[in-house]
């Protein structure tokens, strides 16, 4: 990282009475060039990313439905969260989704990466095909999954029937709607982790395994003592991005269950969408979005604290 600040040449010559310019000409020119390079990005970034972040803070303190003039609400929007059952239900659902889908996705990704790393001939072909779900449109494949979950004689229940299991009503079941969404989401996203893990596995020097074999270690021991530590940076990265991603789950829940039955699959982002764009309660929606942000910051900070203990970086 070369974040070297400009040398302090600027301060020194200001006492010089004949030269009012504090910096040498070429340095000014370089600054000017730099600003010209940055300007297109900066204008857009300030207007559409950085500005809105600050505006979100302000809007969260307002009572505003977009159509009439906003009124000051102070922290009332945040206070409303406490007694709002839908908010807690959305938070609980999002936590449930995250706690189950992230470990499952990681397990599937890791298992498939290990499978593909067994010295197979056409690794690239299998890798591409297995990555396919990750490169589809969520809304489009969500439709297929609704079809797969058709309660009576749908494909999923037909397959369960072969094993003598009478499948549940999936998307309209209080108990099974969320697991159904989770299964679809694991299918949709495992490819990302798989590709990261496969690259990580391929980067592990084979000598380590050979040395371990000479020492007579078992397959499990070399997995535990070589593969996992060497793969830990990749694991950490995938866990962090998966958790952040699953806290923002929206598309499949909107299409497949529309948050139902009841509020059983209403996620935080869906509740923000409802509050802001169906109830036009922009202040409250902004407050919710900041709470979502707060959770993401907390979780990420906790992960980075754990990372110091668990992740092995070789330099």
């Amino acid at each position, binding site marked *: 990282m070369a*974040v070297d*600040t*400009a040398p302090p040449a*600027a301060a020194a010559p200001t006492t010089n009475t004949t030269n009012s310019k504090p910096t040498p000409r070429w340095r000014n020119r*370089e*600054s000017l*060039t*730099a600003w010209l*390079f940055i300007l*297109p*990005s900066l204008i*857009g*970034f300030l*207007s*559409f*990313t950085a500005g*809105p*972040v600050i505006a979100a803070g302000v*809007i969260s303190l307002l009572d505003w439905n977009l159509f009439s003039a906003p009124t000051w609400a102070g922290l009332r929007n945040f206070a409303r969260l406490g007694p709002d059952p839908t908010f807690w239900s959305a938070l609980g659902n999002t936590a449930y989704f995250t706690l189950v889908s992230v470990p499952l996705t990681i397990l599937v990704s890791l298992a498939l990466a290990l*499978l593909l790393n*067994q010295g*197979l001939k056409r690794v690239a072909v*299998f890798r*591409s*095909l*297995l*990555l396919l*779900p990750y*490169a*589809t*449109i*969520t*809304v*489009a494949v969500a*439709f*297929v*999954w609704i*079809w*797969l979950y058709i309660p009576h*004689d*749908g*494909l999923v229940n037909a397959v369960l029937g072969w094993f003598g299991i009478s499948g549940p009503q999936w998307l309209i079941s209080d108990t099974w709607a969320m697991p159904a969404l989770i299964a679809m989401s694991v*299918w949709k996203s495992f490819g990302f982790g798989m590709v*990261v893990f496969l*690259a990580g596995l391929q980067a592990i020097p084979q000598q380590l395994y050979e040395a371990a074999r000479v020492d007579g270690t078992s397959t499990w021991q070399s997995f535990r003592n070589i593969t996992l530590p060497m793969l830990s940076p*990749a694991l950490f*990265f*995938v866990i962090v991005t998966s958790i*952040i991603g699953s806290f*923002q789950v*929206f*598309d499949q829940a*909107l299409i497949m269950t529309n948050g139902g039955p009841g509020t059983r699959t209403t996620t935080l*982002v869906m509740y923000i969408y409802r509050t*802001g*764009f169906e109830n036009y309660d922009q202040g409250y929606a*902004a407050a919710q979005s900041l709470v*979502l942000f707060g959770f*993401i910051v907390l979780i990420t900070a906790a992960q980075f604290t754990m990372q110091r203990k668990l992740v092995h*970086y070789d330099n």
Partner: protein
Amino acid sequence: MTTSELRRKLIVFTCFVVTAITLVPVVMMVLVAFQSDAESMAAKPSFWPSSWHPENLTRAFELVPLGKYLLNTIYFAAGTTLLETATAALAAYAFARLNFPGRSWLFGIYLATLMIPSQVTLIPQFVLVAKLQGIDTWPGMILPHAFTAIGVFLLRQFFLGIPRDYEEAARLDGANRWQAFVRVIVPLAVPAIATLAVFKFIGQWNNLLWPLVISNSDATRTASVGLQVFQDTNGTQWNLLLMAATVTTVPLIVLFFLTQRWFIRGITMSGLGGR
């Protein structure tokens, strides 16, 4: 050698089985899309079409303007991608190579927004676009999603890895910064720029939430939102619904296979380069 031979066969077999299971939803999407109305809506779903109905394709296009939605999706995805990669490359070059007062803190502001979820900016962006009369217009759709920090961050990382000597040589030959950027840096950074572009394009093709709040007519409606409308208006006419889903997904799948070199490089770069 028989055990290792057996082990190898077992691995190949497992790969085939796992891949086949993974592809079932995509294959079923296409198969049901070609079933007859009666077959696809029967109480007992059928898997393999008993007769093929390619006319479902034209019927789906007649029910909703899928062609228009696809074109809109391309506008939206290409517009955001072009703007983002171009402006991000310029800014990333300045952050990586040029000295100017305030560089560190300005880059710090960019970095600080990396972790902020897009839902935080959703409402202010909507308010801004609404105030500027940008609802259901292309500037309103594209501009708010074309200036994220991630592009600047990724390209700056890549530019920092390009040896300064290449550029110095061009500068000694009398090239100015702009010429050095265009003739030396950009050609060297093609893989990184392509990776960013592919990711951005696929990500925006998939974007549902933003078009859902900003576009409210066929003028700017994208495929994701269009499919949702299709579901609302045509219920569960499975063959046509899944035909529409197929039509909107296939271009993305083709794009994925054409660009997967960059796509996979992008995933591994973000995963292992992000140390």
